[in-house]
């Protein structure tokens, strides 16, 4: 794909007008610029990543040794709950939305997102959602402590009054996500540059397009289920209360009807990122572009048909468990297509190993490990052993940390020179990569073993035979947490200066975002590029 940027004659005049922005905090409060909003999303996600990470450190500190050392069990439960909520809704999802804001308009040759004012809103309500959630930790009786999955009756009958704040903050997060998703769909649908046909769109745009559909279909279901929790707790309804004719298992069905597509919301954009990075550093076109698009769509459709694999132990009839088991295993097929295509892209490529590529390669290997443990969990009889153990914790941290987070980090390294105009410090980046890679495996791999041996999740204490592994895991956790400080150092250093980046930045990079100058000007593609 190549591009000719035609300069309009009245460009200077327009430029003057458009580039005017208020200074100081007002620039950020009032901005409707997709790059500003993208930056705010990414910084917000980074802050949330460290807040959620601090909670993980508290969890690992308590679990360093058996017995109760540092925190009360009730506080421990609040930490596991809020850690999960913050990482899912505060770190991973806003980071992807930030990347979408920054990159989608530039990748499709659009001047901005389609709905810039709504874009401002969808970002600015988010800090309040998390402020409410975090402040609830300081309420008498503490914050939410029922797990991020807030199963009834834990969240209805047995929860504290912070539940109302929890519900309200989830509502705000949901509204923010839905507005963001509508914006992405409308942008991609209506604002592609002439000649940017559907099957010419970069895969990051495709995966986000499909993710946005998942978001508008399941975030309202989440809003519905938290509303039911709220009315059950405070207004005398009995959606999940057996005494009034409700059913607590119904909660799990509705929650996981949201929850399973949600996990694909957190991984499909990662697939798009890796599909952008691998061809660049292998200096080859992506292998099987069309099959990647179809695989993404199939994963999205299948994600609606597998929710009850989270509920095998609730006593479902055999035909239902069989259906959900086979449907779940079917997802391995399109996912396998993707992994195959990435490997085939690298086959006989002229590969170099800059930091984004290293993270992308680690993503492929470690995400696949997480995928395999997912397949093990899909097998119903085996799941009866693994259910609610650290094996599950190991599985979803492999797909979310070494999957989603590694892809976000790879994306930041990949596009950072385009954002700041400076190259990041390659050797610091390597330090970040190797420290993260080693510590993350020390952190999550032994969880498989303690899980198989029967250590339950969400418990502040454990049997003595798990002591050694847990000490390893905690050390891995602390090292992984510290390694991320290197990342912050790299980011600050790069934002302040460094070797000037070229427009193309990477030798093998292709796509519209590499045609604009580095750093990307405040306004890009005010006149649509011509795509040949």
């Amino acid at each position, binding site marked *: 794909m190549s591009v000719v940027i035609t300069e309009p004659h009245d460009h200077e005049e327009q430029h003057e007008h458009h580039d005017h922005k208020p200074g100081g905090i007002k620039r950020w409060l009032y901005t409707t610029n997709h790059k500003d909003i993208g930056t705010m999303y990414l910084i917000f996600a980074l802050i949330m990543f460290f807040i959620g990470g601090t909670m993980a450190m508290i969890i690992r500190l308590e679990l360093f040794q058996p017995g109760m050392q540092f925190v009360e069990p009730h506080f421990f439960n609040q930490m596991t709950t809020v850690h999960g909520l913050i990482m899912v809704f505060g770190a991973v999802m806003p980071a992807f939305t930030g990347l979408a804001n920054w990159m989608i308009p530039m990748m499709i040759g659009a001047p901005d997102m*389609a*709905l810039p004012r709504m874009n401002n809103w969808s970002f600015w309500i988010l800090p309040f959602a998390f402020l409410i959630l975090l402040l609830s930790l300081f309420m008498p009786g503490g914050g939410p402590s029922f797990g991020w999955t807030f199963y009834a009756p834990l969240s209805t009958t047995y929860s504290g009054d912070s539940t109302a704040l929890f519900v309200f903050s989830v509502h705000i997060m949901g509204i923010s996500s*839905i507005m963001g*998703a*509508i914006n992405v*769909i*409308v942008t991609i*649908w*209506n604002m592609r540059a002439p000649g940017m046909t559907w099957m010419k769109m970069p895969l990051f745009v495709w995966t986000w397009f499909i993710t946005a559909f998942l978001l*508008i*279909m*399941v*975030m*309202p*279901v*989440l*809003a*519905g*289920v938290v509303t*039911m929790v709220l009315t059950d707790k405070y207004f*005398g309804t009995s*959606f999940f209360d*057996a*005494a*009034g*004719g409700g*059913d607590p*298992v*119904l909660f799990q*069905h*509705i929650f996981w*009807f*949201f929850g399973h597509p949600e996990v694909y919301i957190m991984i499909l954009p990662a697939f798009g990122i890796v599909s952008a990075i691998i061809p660049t550093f292998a200096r080859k076109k992506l292998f099987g572009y069309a099959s990647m698009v179809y695989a993404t769509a199939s994963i999205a459709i299948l994600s609606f048909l597998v929710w009850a694999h989270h509920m095998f132990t609730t*006593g*479902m*009839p055999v035909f*239902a468990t069989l259906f959900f088991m086979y449907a779940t295993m079917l997802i391995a097929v399109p996912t396998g297509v993707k992994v195959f295509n990435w490997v085939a892209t690298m086959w006989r490529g002229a590969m170099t190993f800059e930091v984004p590529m290293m993270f992308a390669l680690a993503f492929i290997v470690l995400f696949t490990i997480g995928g395999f443990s997912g397949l093990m969990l899909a097998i119903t009889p085996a799941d009866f052993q693994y259910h609610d153990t650290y094996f599950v914790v190991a599985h979803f941290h492999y797909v979310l940390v070494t999957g989603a987070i590694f892809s976000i980090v790879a994306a930041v390294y990949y596009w950072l020179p385009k954002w700041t105009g400076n190259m990041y410090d390659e050797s610091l980046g390597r330090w970040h990569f190797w420290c993260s890679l080693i510590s993350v495996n020390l952190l999550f791999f032994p969880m498989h073993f303690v899980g198989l041996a029967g250590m339950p999740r969400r418990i502040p204490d454990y049997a003595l035979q798990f002591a050694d592994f847990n000490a390893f895991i905690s050390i891995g956790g602390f090292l992984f947490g510290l390694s991320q400080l290197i990342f912050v150092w790299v980011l600050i250093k790069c934002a302040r200066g460094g070797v000037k980046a070229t427009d193309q930045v990477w030798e093998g990079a292709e796509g519209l975002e590499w045609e604009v100058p580095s750093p990307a000007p405040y306004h890009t593609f005010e006149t649509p590029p011509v795509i040949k």
Partner: protein
Amino acid sequence: MAQNKPLIGKLILVALAMFGFGFALVPLYDVFCDLTGINGKTAAVAATGDNAVIDTSRVITIEFLARPNKDMPWVFKPEVQTMTVHPGEIHIMNYLAENPTGRLIVGQAVPSVSPGQAALYFNKIECFCFSQQQLAGGKDMLMPLQFYVDPALPAQFNTITLNYTLYDVTQAWTAQQPQQDIIGE
């Protein structure tokens, strides 16, 4: 941009429809459970049992469990623990309820049948679980259950366990009463 509006409208409609769908799952789930007998849910309405043919060749053991919820002060137990029946036979079983407190308490029993797939074949002609039961303080009563097992019960089931959990619904009941009734109490 004008051309955005129809698309935005449709997308908002999808989001709203999915919000509604979340709530629609509640009745859908009940219908689905009724049809398939998942979760051991028995029918909430009376069966007639008129045209059932008694199958004397099979003997089914029925186990009765009764359990007051932890907030429910009633004593609540079945008259006998187990009973053997032929499919199609109509039986009556009494549950004893006693209110040891000094105040009126309203109870609601929720049945559950195990194994779940047998729930469709366990038919109740009359059951105290069909309505809320009131019991004044210090009183006791017998609560009858009239049932039969459908002869179509698949051959692999020889034992059916019926469990009742009894909940205190006095608060909800009080809220529903017209004001003068409560004063009259």
